[in-house]
């Protein structure tokens, strides 16, 4: 029944639904910044496809983690342990192969189990012990990084054919030159899509499907909207919350694996402060920290925005990289104010 009424709405009203406003704002600001870069540094190669793909490559591991984080934020929680868990994953994989001779496949699976287990444990503590998510996951973060330091205090570089193969697995993009003969030619400058980017995009798609088209996803939104009423409606609040944190743990260890593919080493202080990068990407992408609102596509653009600014600073060449931090802060401010305006607008409309 509800499906039918939805179909009756015109496409325009469906697209212009205020709940998508935040995502649109992100996309528009991304386009504006991209256009600025294109006009300013178009000649030095800002507009090439390779630069665009690099936006994905730069922060792919943050992006993978942001998929899980978006879900956690939608339930109204927060997870500060993602960077530590990712770092722990890298350490397990590197230490496992270099010092103990275990195949990376096994250690990768094991570290995923560790991520899922730790996530589920934190979710259980949050739900059953009523400990605020902030504190629980902060403790989890300390634990993961501490264990990481106990395993090894120095960076372990690893050299395994499988890792090299995975890191080297790339899709080279071609373009059609001649329609009649179906001649293909490599796009110049030669553009390749890394394994990490593929994982990132697959995760974004999987996350979108999970959130928008399954019962689980609707439960997640319901809990974020109002946990008490979700419970009264008979939704499995505890199970869903624990599952969300477990999924986030999985995403963080996957991000750790992606990070290993990039740096090919494990380090106990890797990705220090990365959790806030992840959270701010999700927030820039339109996810509300109070829960109930958020979309994977927005998160993806949030991650892209975080790569565009350093790219512009790089292309400029004279700005110090510290401006990147300040620009990110300014951007955050902009987004939050936009979010605020949108929220107050919709509230006023409802009244």
């Amino acid at each position, binding site marked *: 029944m509800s499906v039918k009424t939805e179909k009756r709405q015109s496409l325009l009203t469906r697209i212009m639904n205020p709940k998508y406003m935040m995502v649109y704002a992100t996309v528009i600001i991304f386009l504006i910044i991209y256009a600025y870069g294109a006009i300013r540094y178009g000649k030095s190669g800002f507009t090439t496809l390779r630069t665009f793909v690099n936006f994905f490559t730069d922060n792919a591991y943050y992006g993978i983690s942001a998929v899980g984080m978006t879900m956690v934020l939608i339930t109204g929680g927060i997870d500060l342990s993602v960077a530590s868990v990712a770092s722990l994953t890298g350490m397990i994989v590197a230490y496992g192969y270099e010092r103990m001779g275990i195949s990376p496949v096994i250690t990768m699976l094991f570290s995923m189990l560790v991520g899922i287990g730790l996530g589920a444990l934190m979710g259980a503590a949050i739900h059953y*012990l009523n400990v605020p998510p902030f504190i629980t996951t902060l403790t989890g973060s300390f634990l993961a990084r501490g264990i990481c330091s106990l395993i090894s205090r120095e960076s372990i570089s690893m050299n395994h054919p499988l890792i090299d193969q995975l890191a080297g697995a790339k899709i080279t993009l071609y373009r059609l030159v001649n329609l009649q003969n179906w001649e293909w030619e490599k796009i110049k400058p030669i553009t390749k899509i890394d394994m990490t980017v593929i994982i990132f995009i697959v995760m974004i798609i999987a996350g979108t499907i999970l959130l928008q088209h399954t019962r689980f996803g609707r439960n997640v939104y319901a809990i974020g909207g109002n946990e008490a009423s979700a419970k009264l409606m008979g939704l499995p609040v505890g199970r869903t919350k624990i599952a969300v944190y477990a999924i986030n743990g999985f995403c963080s260890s996957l991000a750790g694996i992606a990070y290993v593919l990039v740096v090919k080493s494990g380090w106990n202080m890797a990705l220090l402060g990365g959790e806030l990068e992840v959270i701010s990407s999700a927030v820039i992408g339109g996810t509300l920290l109070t829960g109930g609102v958020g979309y994977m596509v927005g998160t993806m653009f949030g991650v892209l925005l975080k790569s565009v600014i350093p790219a512009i600073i790089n292309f400029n060449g004279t700005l110090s990289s510290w401006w990147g931090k300040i620009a990110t802060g300014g951007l955050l401010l902009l987004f939050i104010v936009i979010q605020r305006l949108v929220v107050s607008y919709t509230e006023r409309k409802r009244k």
Partner: protein
Amino acid sequence: MKKKLHLILLIAGAVVLAAGLYCFASICGMKDAVYAGYGVSFSDASFAKVFVNDHDEEAVREDFNAAVLSGTGDSAADGTEAPTGTETPAETEATGAETETAPAAASAGAPYDTVIGSFSRVSSLRTAWRLQGIFLPVGALLCLAGLVLILRGKHLDFASIMRSKITWAVIAEILILIVCLIIRPDFFSISYQPSNHMLYGNLIDIINRSAEITIIGMGMTMVIALGGTDLSVGALVAVSGALALKLMRWDPTNPLYQTPGDYTVYPFILVLAVPLLVCLLMGLFNGMLIGRLKLQPIIATLILMVSGRGIAQIVTNGKQYTTMYSPFRWIGQGSCLYLPTPIVITAVIVVGVMLFVRKTAFGTFVESVGINANSSRLSGIDSRAIILIVFALTGLLSGISGLIYSSRIMSNDSNNAGLNYETDAILSVVIGGTSMTGGKFSLAGTVIGSIIIRTIVTFVYFFGIPADATMAFKALIIAVVIVLQAEPVRVWMAKRTERRALAKGGAMK
């Protein structure tokens, strides 16, 4: 009957405290005697630590070296490090390891005729040294308990004490300290260093090192009581340090910003005032975003957290200035009232904030806004002003904390100054029993929480565990504290004690 018990507690505490003080005094009195045979004073490494600094350090060190090398000494090099009061993990480990090897070295006895002569005196001194360490804190604790009970005049209600969150924090702290005492019997010992006019000891060091977090914690407690968090404090610490060092080394008459030297060209008060003012303004900015624009505190303060370190880097052009200016050194490393200055500053701030919050209606306003902002607005409280004041205060306090930090290292470090201070401050508030959901808060609890965190760090160093791995132990201990404090667990405990009391009462009937 109850009143008498309190009085007995107080008197017992006073007696124990007096005994501790007597030990302390006797150590100070006999010090010169020990110097006559200083060879022996090294048979206990902690003695070396106490007595090396204010005498001819070089000669003492050489003698010690010679003794240990001629004896068993593998770890001679460790012991030669002259302790300077600013305790590093390496030194702590060294003092622990030295205790066993040194007596053997003394008994090998190459040039030590004096050793045998003064040995009995020294061993009695050592006993005094260790007893002092037990007497002083226990006496102080008993006195404090007696005083509090007498002043409050409350009856001891076991169930309500078990329900209080601070109780668990105090118990956790005492447990950690007891383990420390078992590992090192002289853990609590305190000694006086005439050259610095300062008292030294592990306890003082713990309080001294927790100063930054305690100061920030005062603001953070109220921020959390309002139902928010302030993530920007660590970045503000960096900004404050960067500005202070910039002003100290920056000559405005020279357009190239060349550094004039080791002293400040400004009136010194400016070096302190400008960073504090900037931090206050940044706090106001946070408050504006949260109070006026009604943003979520976590995300509003994330802005300054992300960009604050960038600002600090730009202020100093990415450089790391150092200074030797002694009034600035006094803030972090000097002594005041025979204590390290940060302790005194912290005490003044804690007392000041407590008076401001509890002797005016401000604290009640904060709790009211934290519990329900709307209804407190309806009852006439300007919640926006409250939020603004609280966040501005937190900014100012992080600025003070930043000055202390940069004075400790006599330099600015935009990347590492105040790193993870926000998490430490939030943890200390939560351990202290203030709920993250807002409402009631406890400043005293925050002080205890911040001391617990520092104690954990010291405790971990004692096992010789690398500093990086501290986090795992921090996490374990915090997890225990949090689980004990969790609502369901506390309710269960309280019910259990009530049930027991009921059962007892029933049996008596």
